[in-house]
């Protein structure tokens, strides 16, 4: 397994272009997920640390007759806005970690929603492009709606795993959901890589043994994979009351996080739905959250503001999920009732947003 950092160092553009998995992933992102074609022009806004990936995608776009131009994400917003207004109809932001120009970009999109579409590729490593787009968007979209519908009907979720997870989550029928499969909607960029659904609940009790990966929006500083050093959380009424890990530094950092105000509260009940992702990657990037299975987020997510949103995610490598009596996930496969018609947000009595990160 190549780490994304090594990917970036060694990832000369020509190497990426010779990699069939990368090329297939990039084509899927551009054509299926972004719906790009010969009409229109796309601006690539690129964090310099992921430039090789961006350059390779640019060349793959050119081979598909998609007109693109690349600018640095480190330019000031006025410069980028001037570029965007120069006849571009779409944009893709390639970022590795930090979100740049979030607020002004959303304001721009709100004004131009009907004539412009935009996407943000979090953790733009070669691995994200290779693994993140193996499934068709329509399939993940249908799966996500099916999960939300099944979960809301059931009103409760039970998660178990062979390594000791037994968690019960009460799902409030009035709670909002996120259905993130990379759609540009409501003036927010489509979030890549796809896909997951999530909601919030404080009715959470039990034990969670995270043996997949840990992730954080402040950047987890160690190898995020937990297969050899799982983290055990004991949760009572939506609060983490105990946390343990054999690795001392992991345990120390975890407790430093938990001691911050509101940071021991469960903030997210998440289900990664992308079964095209075959393994967790060592860097703290969004790809791990999309891995098919259960994840639980804790933290002080009080608003969309970066300065009030500390978040930590715990991903399970494998688990069984019941929604009511229905076994919805088992052996990394989703088992969902067939939906005659893919529902839309209009059919839901609660708000369902199509993005989950900014």
């Amino acid at each position, binding site marked *: 397994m190549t780490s994304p950092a090594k990917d970036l160092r060694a990832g000369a553009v020509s190497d990426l272009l010779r990699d069939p998995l990368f090329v297939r992933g990039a084509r899927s992102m551009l054509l299926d997920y972004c719906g790009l074609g010969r009409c229109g022009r796309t601006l690539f806004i690129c964090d310099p640390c992921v430039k090789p990936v961006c350059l390779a995608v640019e060349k793959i776009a050119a081979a598909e007759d998609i007109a693109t131009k690349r600018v640095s994400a480190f330019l000031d917003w006025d410069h980028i806005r001037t570029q965007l207004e120069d006849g571009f109809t779409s944009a893709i932001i390639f970022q590795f*970690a930090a979100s740049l120009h979030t607020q002004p970009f959303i304001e721009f999109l709100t004004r131009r929603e009907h004539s412009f579409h935009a996407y943000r590729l979090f953790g733009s490593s070669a691995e994200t492009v290779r693994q993140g787009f193996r499934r068709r968007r329509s399939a993940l979209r249908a799966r996500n709606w099916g999960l939300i519908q099944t979960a809301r009907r059931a009103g409760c979720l039970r998660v178990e795993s062979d390594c000791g997870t037994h968690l019960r989550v009460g799902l*409030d029928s009035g709670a909002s959901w996120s259905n993130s499969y990379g759609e540009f909607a409501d003036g927010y960029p489509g979030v890549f890589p796809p896909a997951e659904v999530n909601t919030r609940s404080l009715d959470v009790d039990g034990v969670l043994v995270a043996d997949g990966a840990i992730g954080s*929006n402040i950047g987890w*500083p160690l190898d995020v994979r937990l297969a050899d050093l799982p983290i055990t959380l004991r949760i009572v009424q939506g609060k983490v009351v105990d946390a343990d890990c054999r690795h001392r530094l992991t345990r120390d950092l975890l407790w430093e996080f938990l001691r911050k105000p509101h940071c021991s509260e469960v903030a997210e009940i998440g289900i990664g739905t992308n079964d095209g992702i075959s393994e967790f990657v060592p860097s703290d990037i969004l790809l791990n959250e999309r891995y098919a299975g259960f994840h639980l987020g804790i*933290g*002080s997510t009080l608003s969309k*503001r*970066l300065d009030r949103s*500390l978040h930590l995610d715990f991903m399970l490598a494998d688990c069984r999920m019941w929604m009511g009596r229905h076994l919805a996930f088992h052996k990394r496969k989703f088992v969902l009732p067939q939906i005659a018609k893919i529902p839309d947000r209009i059919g839901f009595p609660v708000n369902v947003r199509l993005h*989950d990160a900014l």
Partner: protein
Amino acid sequence: MKTEVKKVAEFRRRLDVNIAIWAIDIPAIRRITLELTPEQQQVLKRATRQVVPSLTLVLQSNELPPNGHALACLQIQAPPKSKSRSKKE
């Protein structure tokens, strides 16, 4: 390439100053626990026949401050065990 020590220091600094690299956008939740006065407990006891020392309101919304939906959680205190009367012989 940052060393692990530097990364750990960066994590702690971000934690300290409360600054994230990117924002999670999920609905907001507030939990407010109200300790009830003896008079309020008495009112609830009449209605529920239970002793309720505190009332936790879970408020959730897409926007802040949460004002869309509230779920009340009643913390029920176990009633004191009544002394069983010994039968007079």
